[in-house]
């Protein structure tokens, strides 16, 4: 038997191409005669459209067309709901208001498209934007979450009775009972930060209509090629196979690129068919900030009930969730928040209510972390406040309430984003805590180091928090694995890759069954012309779902190869092995047949075949889990704060994570690194700010602070636990979001710890130095 290719840090197959400038990203695709689109976006946050005058813009040399909602005629209609709400939660309310591709009667956020220009170059298209005159009746902006439901709040969708987008209550046990029996009940108003996905590459879409073959070729930076293809087909009245939607290389996704039914995929293909010209739209950075989706904005009224010994009796969390001007992405984010408040703790009584509200802000859809970090932030903050109240050490309080391994799998009783009950499937939570506490030398820091530092007037603080990462949710993904006549292997799927390393990890999974060098395995991701079925890249589900499908398909192909080889080599299957690109007799290795030869033989060109025979050395497989797999971990931070300037330096960062089997540990660590960077960004740098009139005032990297190299700690110290998930044959859980989930809660605990004797009482997940300065000033005054 050859060596396993699983749990090995293979260098990535895709690297040489990307490193040498041979990547092929959306804006790298050019066609002769291609026309370029620029979008006229509203400067107003809330307004009624009186008139849009495009006449002057049309006169500019080089401008080919200008379209408004009116010009789209019958083609204009509100988009479909990309994610429906779950039906399993009784009594829940959801008012679906999906996106309008171009605003027709009303503008609901600043940055909303009102017209598109098609021109010979992007430069000319942008010139024309200045000559589109938008005449509006400005309306009052609605932005403050807690005021959106006031009786006198202006209505964003005027056919609704209020700005309520959804109301969902879930309860396990009885909060009332827990509160009544508790020794201590703590209530806090907790606010989570509003951040952007900010992939380095902006979004883009190219559409080319082939009028001879009636085929629409589309290249898009989407994280969900199949849903986008289907959406375009439905809009344009085409069959699915008349559209070939392809992912080029994608320069980062982080959530917002999953959104479809926006102006790009609705209007650009329509223009391509209308003008019969290749059409390109590539978003610029300011548009990305204004018009692409963002996340994290919630206001929680959270309570925790405990006994004096620290035992949690219950948690109540009623929160406002900002969905922006529309809610095309359903309930995914706030449902994640509901499931993640529980985290890894034993909470017998839990009441949670979502009040999803419309605001005059950009649409909210998942950004790496997607509701999870908010839930973790709320729970961990509550525990910190409780520890303070009870005079307990924060780590001790956590120890007391962690679910022990023997309680797993643990059914939480809360319906999650995959519409089924959230289950904590596997792991050893206390061990993750102890591993981190040991590695960061928590006891020593608290008992020996910190007292000395304090005596020297230094402000260093330590934080340790726990987290879960709900990953790998359904419904399903699929893949096809094929051995070619050259003996090389090809994997096709319609997932989407934005840098996660699928070209390598999926190859590793197939190689493990097929005994081929991973360099001889090519992977096609996100080409609907090659594979028809799938959902998309979200919820850290790629390797678990597609990987399992690839694994299952590879097992089938291996089986097929063995069957065929058994006949050709006249040897029973169990005496054969698949290795080094051949099937051979285990004891007589020189007696073999190559996989390429088998592939030839698997497609007979003359003669007859047995009934039921399936040609080709290929197989397809689908995988859909019963529910998501839950990763988890523990983060420890030591922060060094200059009390005079409130500048914060991360002195140490230790993370323990359990994402089940690591297909490629190098890539797993890379995912943790990137997640941590976003988490650090959320806690200390990144912050989308709207002014009181609904203007986004942070629409550039001058004001939206992108975490830089020197903002990171010297080292991300990563510890691993590996508890294979029982849900899939390879035992995988996702890892994409862990780092982004855990940082803010830990950051705030460490900050509070750094200022001994002061009650900073931090209730928000963003803490820039100026804010910290004022928190300290306030605490000093108290």
């Amino acid at each position, binding site marked *: 038997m050859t060596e396993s290719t699983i749990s090995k840090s293979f260098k990535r197959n895709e690297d040489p191409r990307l490193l040498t400038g041979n990547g092929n990203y959306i804006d790298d695709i050019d066609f002769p005669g291609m026309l370029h689109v620029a979008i006229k976006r509203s400067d107003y946050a809330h307004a009624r459209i009186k008139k849009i005058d495009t006449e002057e813009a049309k006169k500019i040399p080089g401008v080919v067309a200008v379209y408004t909602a009116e010009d789209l005629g019958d083609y204009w209609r509100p988009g479909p709901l990309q994610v429906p709400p779950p039906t399993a939660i009784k009594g829940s309310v959801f008012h679906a208001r999906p996106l309008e591709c171009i605003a027709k009667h009303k503008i609901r956020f600043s940055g909303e498209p009102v017209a598109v220009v098609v021109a010979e170059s*992007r430069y000319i298209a942008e010139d024309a934007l*200045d000559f589109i005159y938008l005449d509006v009746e400005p309306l009052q902006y609605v932005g403050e979450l807690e005021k959106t439901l006031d009786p006198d709040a202006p209505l964003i969708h005027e056919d609704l009775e209020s700005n309520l987008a959804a109301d969902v209550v879930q309860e396990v046990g009885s909060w009332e009972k827990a509160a009544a029996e508790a020794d201590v009940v703590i209530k806090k108003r907790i606010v989570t930060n509003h951040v952007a996905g900010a992939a380095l590459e902006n979004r883009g879409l190219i559409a080319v209509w082939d009028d001879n073959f009636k085929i629409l070729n589309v290249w898009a930076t989407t994280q969900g090629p199949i849903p986008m293809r289907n959406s375009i087909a439905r809009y344009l009245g085409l069959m699915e196979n008349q559209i070939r939607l392809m992912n080029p290389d994608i320069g980062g996704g982080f959530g917002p690129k999953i959104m479809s039914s926006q102006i790009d995929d609705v209007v650009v293909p329509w223009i391509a068919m209308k003008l019969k010209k290749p059409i390109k739209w590539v978003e610029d950075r300011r548009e990305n900030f204004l018009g692409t989706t963002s996340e994290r904005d919630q206001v929680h009224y959270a309570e925790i009930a405990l006994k004096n010994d620290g035992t949690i009796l219950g948690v109540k969390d009623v929160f406002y969730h900002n969905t922006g001007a529309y809610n095309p992405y359903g309930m995914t984010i706030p449902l994640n928040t509901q499931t993640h408040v529980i985290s890894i703790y034993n909470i017998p009584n839990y009441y949670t209510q979502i009040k999803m509200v419309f605001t005059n802000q950009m649409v909210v859809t998942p950004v790496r972390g997607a509701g999870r970090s908010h839930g973790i932030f709320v729970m961990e903050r509550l525990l910190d406040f409780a520890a303070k109240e009870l005079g307990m050490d924060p780590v001790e309080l956590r120890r007391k309430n962690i679910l022990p391994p023997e309680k797993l799998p643990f059914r939480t009783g809360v319906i999650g984003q995959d519409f089924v009950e959230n289950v904590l499937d596997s792991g050893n939570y206390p061990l993750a805590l102890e591993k981190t506490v040991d590695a960061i030398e928590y006891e020593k820091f608290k008992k020996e180091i910190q007292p000395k530092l304090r005596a020297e007037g230094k402000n260093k603080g330590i934080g340790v928090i726990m987290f879960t990462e709900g990953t790998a949710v359904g419904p399903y993904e699929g893949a096809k694995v094929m051995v070619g006549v050259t003996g090389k292997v090809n994997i096709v799927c319609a997932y989407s890759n934005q840098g996660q390393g699928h070209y390598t990890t999926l190859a590793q999974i197939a190689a493990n069954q097929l005994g081929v060098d991973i360099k001889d395995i090519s992977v096609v991701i996100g080409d609907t012309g090659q594979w028809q079925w799938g959902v998309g890249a979200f919820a850290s589900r790629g390797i678990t779902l597609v990987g399992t499908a690839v694994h299952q398909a590879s097992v089938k192909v291996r089986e097929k190869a063995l069957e065929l080889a058994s006949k050709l080599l006249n040897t029973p299957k169990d005496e054969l092995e698949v290795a080094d690109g051949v099937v051979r007799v285990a004891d007589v290795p020189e007696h073999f047949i190559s996989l390429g030869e088998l592939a030839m033989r698997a497609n007979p060109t003359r003669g007859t075949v047995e009934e039921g025979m399936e040609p080709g050395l290929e197989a397809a497989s689908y995988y859909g889990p019963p529910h998501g797999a839950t990763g988890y971990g523990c983060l420890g931070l030591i922060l060094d704060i200059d009390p005079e300037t409130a500048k914060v330096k991360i002195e140490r960062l230790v993370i323990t994570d359990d994402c089940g089997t690591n297909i490629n540990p190098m890539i797993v660590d890379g995912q943790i690194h990137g997640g941590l960077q976003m988490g650090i960004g959320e806690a200390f740098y990144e912050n989308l700010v709207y002014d009181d009139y609904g203007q986004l005032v942070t629409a550039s990297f001058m004001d939206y602070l992108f975490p830089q190299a020197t903002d990171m700690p010297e080292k991300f110290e990563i510890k691993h636990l590996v508890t294979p998930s029982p849900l899939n044959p390879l035992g995988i859980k996702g890892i994409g979001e862990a780092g982004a989930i855990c940082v803010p809660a830990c950051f705030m605990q460490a900050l509070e710890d750094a200022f001994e004797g002061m009650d900073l009482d931090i209730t928000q997940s963003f803490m820039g*130095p100026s804010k910290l*300065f004022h928190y300290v000033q306030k605490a000093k005054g108290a």
Partner: protein
Amino acid sequence: MKPAPFDYYAPTSLSEALDKLTELGYSGKVLAGGQSLIPAMNFRMARPTALVDLGKVKELSYIKPTADGGMAIGTMTRDSVVEEDLLVSERFPILVKTIKHIAHKQIRNRGTFGGAIAHADPAAQLPAAALLLDANLKVLSKAGERWVKAVDFFIGPFMTVLEPEELLAEVVLPPLAPRTGASYQQVSRQKGGYAQAAVISTVTLDGADRVKEARVALFSVGEYPLLASKPNQVLAGQVPTAEAIEEIAAYVAKNECDPGTDIHGTEEYRRNLVHVLVRRALTEAVQQAKK
């Protein structure tokens, strides 16, 4: 994010450049390194109708020592060239330190010494350095030359005494006196980012360690770089003490700067930074002077 169209002129000599600026008047704008102007043009915040690119006016790019021990720097000299110049680092180490805080290498490789001063961004390092080092600015137009002291040059955010037909041609730095120490102190949200408050200081001591002159330039805390007067008033002729420095720092923070509140920091926070940074700057400059 593509710039609006403009007319472009690339004179190859100084006289040609001055002719062009006179001809264009208010509709012309000088393009030096472009590192501030072009981003603004890409956002279409700036829409100059004509640019006069000085990139080919080679005679504006030089670093020359002056006989008195100072330096003369041509306006088109790249920041990174000044940063790496050995004589500059010998005569004005504080200038090198200051330049290292300008954005990142890629920007300093294109940004120009005079361009940054003429741009007069209130958050920029070089206008403040010019002020601190009492630079003499040579202003040229077709009509002739005039010299302006840095302290008289800046009149508002992005505003200077330059008329549209004029250009800043040379920056002359008078020599630093012996026993002069200096310090650069800045707090920005990120390395290379805009300062929330910044202080550059020089302190010159006499043989008895009494202060001959204390200069403190502040930037990013007002409409243009500011030269605080309190430090020299208090310290001149005195042996500097921690108490005196603290008193100065508190005074300057309260009375000699005008920071505003923006999304990154409140006025109160930034005044606090000025307080801390003035103290740190003077303390370090004094220590350096003693070396």
